[in-house]
């Protein structure tokens, strides 16, 4: 797929309807869509519910398998599957994070994490599933340790952002946490070996960073590049020294590589990097765009080019775009129009 240099087209596979308010976020179950297990997707919404969608193996069409309701009392802002796909964490404006267990296709709320003063805005599991991070309007980032028996213990409360924290994201291979905020910065948090977590780097306007709210971030598969998107209408790519990073020789800082501007003309809410190296972005201009690293050998270092856009991917703002992990590579998008769409990016021969 990545070797394809020609044109691409975006095929709408299916529109998933059911939510009665804006859909904020989507998450693919990483254990599904592989080895004969049907692909599975969770979506969460301003209607206070979470919907789990599954692909019917015989018809290939998607259906709503479960509605997770009557737990959160306000908007469900974020959802994330544990690496094993057995647990789903959901963060809500009701200040709680709920943990749902998939028991033979039924979802039971097995734990509720309380601690944030108000809206929880993002939840994320680390690569091994041993840690869960949450963040919210109270400007804090929480790290929870996952204990046996669906117990969660707060390992650290990280203060440092000066405004609400929009998203938390673990590095794909290392236990390093990234958070982005309404304060226009991205903060990087690492453990010092004594179970204490500290901010090891802040990426702000001064280091080539964003000039308004940073809404989301995502990593490439190798974990040596990161992409961020913002209310400043730009997408930025960041890089770290991968060889030095792998040697485990202390913290290796990240630096700004390039800025993609002039594409989206309203707030960019979501970016996601596919395993094949394609960056998808979704924004308040209702559009989804796709970028790849340009191999044109620029002397100024790596540059990125847009390979495709769908100007009217949804009827309203696109809040979340997510590539699937499975054998069939889908993109899911969530929108203010209350729908989730499943897309396939296909080469035009």
């Amino acid at each position: 797929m990545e070797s394809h240099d020609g044109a691409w087209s975006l095929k709408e596979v299916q529109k998933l309807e059911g939510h009665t308010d804006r859909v904020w976020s989507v998450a693919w179950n990483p254990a599904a869509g592989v080895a004969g297990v049907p692909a599975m997707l969770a979506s969460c919404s301003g209607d206070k519910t979470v919907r789990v969608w599954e692909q019917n193996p015989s018809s290939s069409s998607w259906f709503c398998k479960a509605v997770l309701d009557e737990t959160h009392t306000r908007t469900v802002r974020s959802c994330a599957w544990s690496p094993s796909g057995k647990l789903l964490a959901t963060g809500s404006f009701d200040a709680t994070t709920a943990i749902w267990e998939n028991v033979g296709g039924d979802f039971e709320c097995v734990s509720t994490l309380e601690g944030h003063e108000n809206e929880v805005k993002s939840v994320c599991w680390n690569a091994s599933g041993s840690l869960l991070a949450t963040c919210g309007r109270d400007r804090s980032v929480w790290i929870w340790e996952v204990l046996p028996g669906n117990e969660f213990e707060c390992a650290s409360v990280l203060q440092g952002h000066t405004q609400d924290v929009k998203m938390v994201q673990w590095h794909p291979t290392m236990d390093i946490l990234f958070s982005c905020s309404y304060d226009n910065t991205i903060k990087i948090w690492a453990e010092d070996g004594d179970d204490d977590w500290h901010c090891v780097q802040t990426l702000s306007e001064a280091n080539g960073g964003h000039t308004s709210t940073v809404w989301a971030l995502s990593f490439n598969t190798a974990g040596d590049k990161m992409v961020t998107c913002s209310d400043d209408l730009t997408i930025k790519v960041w890089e770290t020294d991968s060889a030095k990073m792998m040697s485990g020789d202390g913290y290796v800082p990240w630096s700004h590589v390039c800025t993609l501007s002039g594409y989206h003309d309203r707030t960019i809410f979501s970016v996601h990097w596919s395993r094949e190296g394609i960056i998808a972005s979704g924004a308040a201009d209702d559009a989804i765009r796709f970028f790849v690293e340009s191999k044109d050998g620029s002397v100024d270092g790596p540059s990125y080019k847009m390979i495709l856009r769908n100007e009217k991917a949804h009827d309203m703002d696109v809040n979340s775009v997510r590539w699937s992990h499975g054998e069939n590579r889908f993109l899911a998008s969530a929108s203010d129009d209350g729908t989730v769409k499943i897309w396939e990016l296909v080469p035009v021969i």
Partner: protein
Amino acid sequence: MVSELINANPVVYEKKERRVRSTPSCVDEYAAEPIDQLEIFDHLRDIKDPEHPYSLEELKVITEDAIEVDDSNSYVRVTFTPTVEHCSMATIIGLCLRVKLMRSLPSRYKVDIRIAPGSHATEAAVNKQLNDKERVAAALENPNLVDMVDECLAPSNGFAG
């Protein structure tokens, strides 16, 4: 309600005469009629000020000229002028404008709300908050704020004074 008003003596202006829309010479009842400045202004002019028994029009917090509309691109920008520079009600007024437009305009519309440049001490902070839809969504789940907004948006019964 409030013991000390932020602006105790606001200047009250006369309401503009309601204009009747000019009817185009060739009437095609099936043609979509574009949304214009006056239509947006009509949605907003009667919103009540959070602390005075006057409308936003009477206080010149909004005027017809402060509304930019581009119907073909489904875009509206409303620029409002708080009555005093330190008006702590600016966020509530902005929220009222946004909610009223959310309820009145087709969902295809993109709306920006901003404070008139130079008219408020914390202009940038208020603008950022009013245009962060996540903060707006959270505010609109707060029953106290929703009550305040609904009160400002309630149709007025007769005239005060």
